[in-house]
């Protein structure tokens, strides 16, 4: 269980995080998304015990993380910019980890060699970007961590490898209740594996929710009328966003599905479609609400 309570972090005069709180339950997959520069990587580095929080509490299994060896041996952090020792081969790196992580599982390391299929005698720094990431995940999984902190883990991997890696991670979640906190901009990909989502923007947590609740809460509605659009409809509906395309009205509405349906049907529309939103759409509309809109730039 990861608990973060009102954590702030400042770098000189840049306020990277302001009073961010979050909780990740054991065996859960938490997706951290946000605009560029929102503070995702800072948050993950705080969780990994690389940064020290300026204020607030940050605990894994009720213990503070910073400089805490017992907790750190059970966590794996894969950063967005990978670091490997100069001239180290995969095998050298594995030996190094086996030496410092007590729960290193050599059997697993050998087994995963078949999945990743990279010659263990190769120097890691001579490998391609995607292959280096594979090595990081390979070694990370062989550490049998209780918590994995992943910063853009699938970045640079080919589609086959992405699927393989997701599958390996999910298996560990299902079988050993591994906890994962993952940041990504590929929202489509997060949808399959995350059960909890937090959206960061300018150092603050905008919303965090169970992913299915988040989706059950906001709906995209398309309505069309054979005549005029009843003016009362727009006045009496709380919309996050609305747009008229010809005679079709597109609304983004918060609320329960059944309520929205009965409310809309009271206007007798000719067409009524309610679509669940994708994570990408939720992200865009929530951001739009906070002044981070997509404005089409015309030249």
């Amino acid at each position, binding site marked *: 269980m990861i608990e973060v309570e009102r954590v702030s972090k400042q770098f000189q005069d840049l306020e990277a995080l302001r009073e961010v709180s979050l909780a990740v339950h054991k065996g859960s997959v938490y997706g951290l998304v946000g605009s560029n520069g929102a503070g995702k990587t800072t948050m993950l580095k705080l969780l990994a015990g690389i940064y020290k929080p300026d204020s607030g509490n940050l605990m894994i299994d009720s213990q503070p993380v910073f400089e805490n060896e017992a907790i750190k041996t059970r966590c794996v952090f894969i950063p967005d910019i990978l670091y490997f020792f100069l001239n180290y081969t995969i095998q050298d790196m594995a030996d190094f980890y086996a030496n410092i992580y007590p729960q290193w599982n050599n059997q697993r390391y050998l087994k995963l060699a078949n999945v990743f299929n990279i010659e263990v005698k190769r120097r890691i720094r001579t490998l391609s970007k995607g292959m280096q990431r594979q090595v990081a995940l390979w070694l990370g999984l062989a550490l049998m961590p209780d918590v994995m902190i992943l910063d853009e883990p699938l970045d640079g991997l080919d589609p086959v490898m992405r699927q393989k890696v997701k599958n390996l991670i*999910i298996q560990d979640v*299902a*079988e050993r209740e591994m906890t994962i906190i993952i940041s990504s901009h590929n929202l489509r990909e997060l949808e*399959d594996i995350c*059960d909890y989502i937090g959206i960061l923007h300018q150092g603050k947590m905008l919303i965090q929710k169970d992913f*299915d609740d988040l989706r059950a809460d906001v709906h995209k509605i398309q309505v069309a009328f054979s005549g005029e659009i009843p003016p009362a409809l727009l006045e009496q509906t709380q919309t996050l966003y609305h747009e008229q395309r010809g005679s079709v009205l597109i609304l983004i509405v918060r609320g329960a599905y059944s309520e929205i349906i009965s409310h809309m049907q009271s206007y007798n529309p000719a067409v009524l479609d309610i*679509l669940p939103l994708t994570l990408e759409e939720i992200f865009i509309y929530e951001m739009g609400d906070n002044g981070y809109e997509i404005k089409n730039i015309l030249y």
Partner: protein
Amino acid sequence: MFELDLRSRAPIYEQLVDKIIELIINNVLKPDEQLPSVRVLSSELTINPNTIQKAYRELEYRGYIYSLPGKGSFVKPAVSGDNTARLQSLESELARIIAEMRYLGMPPGEIVTRVNDLLSKDKGGKMND
């Protein structure tokens, strides 16, 4: 055994629920047959195990499956309980289909004949969901 449409807008747990109900209604999953465990299904489909757990809870709540502690989940023989909500949504779907058929020029008599044909083919509720 399942194939989910990961590109669909429908939430994954809803898709799972619908898929399993379809398999139960069409008798692919037989009464008292065991459903795959959360762990197995999770790694087969590469989906968060908590999502699958949630779908199974929903199915149990709706009366399609039952679970035995320590053994797993099984198909419940006959569906009991309150189906009003589902029937209502099916009815509105039917209304939409009929409206479209009418728009495309199918006469009402023809629609009734088609429906009767389908009803006479259907034996004992093994319909396509």
